[in-house]
């Protein structure tokens, strides 16, 4: 006869129990599922992506109505359980009694509400369920929200709302954020990147009182007297196991419902799983152990012999743009040593804590790719004696392997954990793949790997690729191209780190899969090499797109356009006459004025290029680099020379800047402008670098765009002299040249490194600024020259056919 199973609570743990049960023994139980929330099981840890708008609620539903129906689960959703009668073995719901043979208590936890005066006001909520999430999603750019609690949940709530433009303030009682998972340095980096997202953060702040008006929250008062106005106040300060029902039923409880290793409570017919339980004195908040408990409870219900054991846990934060990872114990202590790696330019911090040749803790921020490898070393207690020196660089640097991220995954043992949420190890995934799961979706469906928080998706894909080889197409164009698995960032780092100074060295040392690259990677590598090694590396025209090889823009009919430079937009009658003569002589069909204040001759035949350049060179006109990923123009207004509003000589500064920067190569094109007053006629505030002159000096702002994206520049600094303005512009340009990803405009690079970093490097640290300027000048000693004149002199014949049989035949 079928047994009757009643489950109280449709959360992630009990949902997993039902999955295991109905899969292993579909006919063993008649199941009734109570849930106080009016819905079934959804992936609660994905509420943060729902809040930020990256996912919809529908996407995070784990079990829909059909799922329950197929398995014959009777759902009593929206119905509270009033009592468990253990003597009669009956659960008393609001709408009637249900008898049971076996009972699973999965009542979860309640958010902890600090009993501050005013905590009962309207608009004071926790962050726990869909209703809370929806209330937060109702906030917009006109609203202010205060979040109490700088832990995982509070920060996800804050970042989610900030993504909608809400003015969010986080109040945290401790000295740094996420103090249970992060050390101070990582907490600092996290704080910085959250502040970059516009979130205000108060540390060591004690809340005193919640102030209200007409029964609704108005502000939070701190004990130093600060008043933080808000329309909504979110308390995310922790959870408490929900033991009310169990306690009332006389089950043994402490902080949570006591369970043994089989998840059995003090009653042999009642099990408990999830956040409501206490096992060996511990209560649980992260999802991984909950899933382990669910597996154990399901198998115990089927009378199998299993035991739940607690494991080391790792943490990741689900906030886009904040990559952090922490695992184990990272407190300082006697006999403990640290290995620390910092790369401020990328905002990367890694710290490993070692005790007696064993790794015991790891904190990583900014680059968490090696997290699971470190996690494995900690769990397995591996001796790190042999690899100590290169340990912090991760698995790719162990055993003399190449710097291939896949080799790191390939090197992981089968028992290495890939998905921390679901406790799925590499061996499970490989087994699933061998049974036919050949893409991410299939692996997810059969193993649950990456099906919860999703941060291990990349790793799962790498396991797929390692296992299936070419049969698996890696999604997302993360590697530079098909010639390599490395990303632009990897390659840039390795070119510098391994001092690779030729393309051949890059192909060889970084294991390119093609003999000499392709049209995607060759221009990028050529740029990285010439930017990093200006003296040692010789620019390779054959690795450049035709425009940069021929110093002219190819048009759709195969002809070219020729744009001579007009410094700061200033020209002379003599130059204009030369341009007009050239247009006549070479039958130029279209002469157009460009947006960068100069003149474009369109429709010049390829073989005429050296001749037209030579003619233009004679009056001093040089290449305008209108074709280059490099300095294009410096647009100016007339400034103090003519304008009654002008505050400085904007034209003169523009010309000086253009003469300083011209010929330099950058990751993408670089456009500047100088306006003589805040009326900004040169439109400086939508350029890559813009200077706006004011009475007291020069405001330099960067990161504008007016193309596919339109963006206003952000102020970098104000300086008082023209010389300093030029220095700052050179230093910013060099920082962008050294760090930018090929084909990222300056604003994209700025988005990655952050304005604070640029300010620190270029504005505050004068020594560093001088070093950047010096490196820029060194590079310019090679590249500040007219390529047209050079090609006329040395390469003119390459513009003509190697042989012409049409002439011969005409003889």
């Amino acid at each position: 006869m079928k047994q009757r199973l009643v489950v109280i609570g449709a959360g992630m743990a009990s949902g997993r129990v039902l999955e295991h049960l109905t899969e292993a023994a579909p006919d063993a139980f008649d199941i009734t599922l109570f849930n106080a929330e009016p819905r079934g099981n959804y992936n609660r840890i994905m509420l943060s992506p729902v809040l930020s708008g990256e996912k919809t609620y529908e996407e995070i539903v784990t079990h829909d109505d059909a799922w329950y129906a197929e398995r014959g689960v009777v759902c009593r959703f929206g119905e509270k359980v009033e009592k468990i009668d253990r003597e009669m073995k009956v659960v008393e719901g609001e709408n009637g009694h249900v008898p049971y043979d076996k009972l699973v208590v999965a009542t979860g936890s309640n958010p902890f509400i600090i009993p501050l005066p005013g905590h009962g006001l309207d608009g004071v909520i926790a962050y726990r369920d869909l209703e809370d999430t929806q209330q937060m999603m109702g906030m917009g750019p006109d609203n202010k929200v205060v979040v109490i609690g700088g832990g995982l949940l509070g920060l996800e709530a804050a970042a989610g709302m900030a993504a909608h433009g809400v003015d969010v303030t986080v109040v945290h009682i401790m000295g740094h954020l996420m103090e249970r998972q992060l050390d101070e340095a990582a907490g600092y980096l996290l704080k910085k990147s959250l502040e970059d997202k516009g979130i205000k953060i108060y540390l060591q702040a004690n809340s005193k009182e919640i102030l209200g008006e007409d029964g609704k929250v108005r502000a939070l008062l701190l004990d130093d007297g600060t008043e933080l106005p808000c329309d909504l106040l979110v308390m995310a300060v922790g959870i408490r196991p929900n033991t009310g029902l169990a306690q009332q039923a006389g089950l043994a409880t402490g902080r949570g419902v006591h369970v043994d290793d089989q998840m059995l409570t003090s009653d042999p017919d009642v099990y408990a799983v999830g956040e409501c339980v206490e096992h060996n004195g511990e209560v649980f908040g992260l999802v991984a152990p909950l899933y382990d408990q669910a597996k154990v409870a399901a198998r115990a219900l089927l009378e199998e012999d299993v035991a739940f054991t607690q494991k080391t846990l790792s943490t990741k934060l689900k906030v886009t743009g904040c990559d952090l990872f922490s695992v184990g114990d990272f407190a300082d202590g006697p006999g403990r040593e640290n290995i620390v790696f910092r790369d401020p330019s990328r905002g990367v911090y890694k710290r490993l804590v070692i005790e007696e040749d064993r790794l015991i803790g790891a904190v990583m921020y900014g680059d968490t790719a090696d997290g699971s490898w470190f996690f494995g070393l900690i769990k397995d207690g591996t001796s790190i004696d042999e690899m100590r020196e290169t340990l912090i660089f991760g698995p790719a640097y162990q055993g003399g392997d190449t710097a291939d991220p896949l080799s790191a995954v390939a090197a992981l043992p089968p028992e290495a954990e890939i998905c921390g949420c679901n406790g799925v190890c590499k061996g499970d995934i490989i087994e699933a793949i061998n049974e036919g799961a050949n893409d991410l979706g299939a692996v997810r469906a059969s193993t649950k790997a990456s099906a919860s928080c999703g941060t291990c998706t990349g790793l799962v894909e790498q396991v797929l690729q390692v296992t299936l080889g070419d049969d698996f197409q890696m999604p997302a164009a993360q590697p530079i191209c098909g010639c390599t698995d490395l990303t632009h960032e990897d390659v840039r780092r390795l070119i510098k780190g391994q001092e690779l100074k030729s393309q051949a060295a890059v192909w060889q040392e970084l294991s390119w899969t093609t003999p000499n690259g392709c049209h995607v990677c060759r221009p990028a590598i050529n740029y990285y090499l010439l930017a990093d090694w200006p003296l040692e590396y010789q620019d390779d025209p054959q690795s450049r797109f035709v425009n940069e090889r021929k110093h002219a823009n190819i048009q759709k009919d195969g002809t070219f356009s020729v744009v001579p430079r007009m410094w700061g937009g200033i020209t002379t009658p003599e130059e204009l006459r030369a341009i007009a003569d050239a247009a006549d002589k070479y039958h130029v069909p279209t002469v157009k004025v460009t947006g960068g204040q100069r003149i474009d001759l369109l429709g010049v035949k390829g073989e005429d290029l050296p001749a037209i350049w030579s003619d233009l060179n004679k009056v001093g006109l040089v290449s305008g680099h209108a074709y280059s990923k490099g300095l294009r123009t410096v647009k100016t207004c007339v400034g103090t020379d003519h304008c009654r509003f002008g505050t400085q000589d904007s034209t003169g500064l523009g010309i000086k800047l253009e003469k300083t920067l011209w010929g330099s190569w950058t990751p993408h094109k670089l456009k500047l402008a100088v306006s003589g007053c805040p009326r900004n006629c040169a439109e400086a505030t939508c350029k890559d670098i813009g200077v706006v002159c004011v009475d007291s000096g020069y405001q330099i702002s960067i990161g504008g765009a007016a193309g596919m994206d339109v963006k206003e520049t952000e102020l970098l600094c104000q300086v008082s002299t023209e010389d300093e303005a030029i220095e700052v512009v050179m230093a910013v340009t060099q920082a962008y040249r050294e760090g930018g990803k090929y084909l990222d405009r300056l604003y994209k690079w700025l988005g990655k490194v952050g304005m604070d970093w640029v300010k620190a490097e270029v504005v505050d640290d004068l020594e560093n600024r001088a070093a950047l300027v010096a490196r820029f000048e060194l590079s310019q000693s090679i590249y500040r020259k007219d390529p047209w004149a050079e090609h006329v002199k040395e390469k003119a014949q390459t513009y003509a056919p190697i042989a012409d049989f049409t002439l011969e035949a005409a003889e």
Partner: protein
Amino acid sequence: MSWVDIGHIDEVPVRGARLVKTHIGCIAVFRTAEAEVFAATNSCPHKGGPLSEGIVHGQSVTCPLHNWVFDLNTGEAKGADDGRITTYTVRLEDGRILLDDSAVSRRSAA
């Protein structure tokens, strides 16, 4: 088969190309490795892009206009694109590049 001398291999840059003008249109002569040459029509079948201006990699060239990639051995487009360029027989003798005469003579055009 008769051959016509079109120039020395050093006149073509490594991983580059030069143009040969003929009565039947322009032919691109590609050089891949130190001493390896190929010849094909200069015009991409997609939108007529000048293939001699493309980036040469391995034994392939990428059209500068829309990045179609052609295998210089067969003339076939690689990847998802569907198309073919005419290839011509070309060989090297003591550093001189020799092109199949029928490719450039007026007779073959007729």
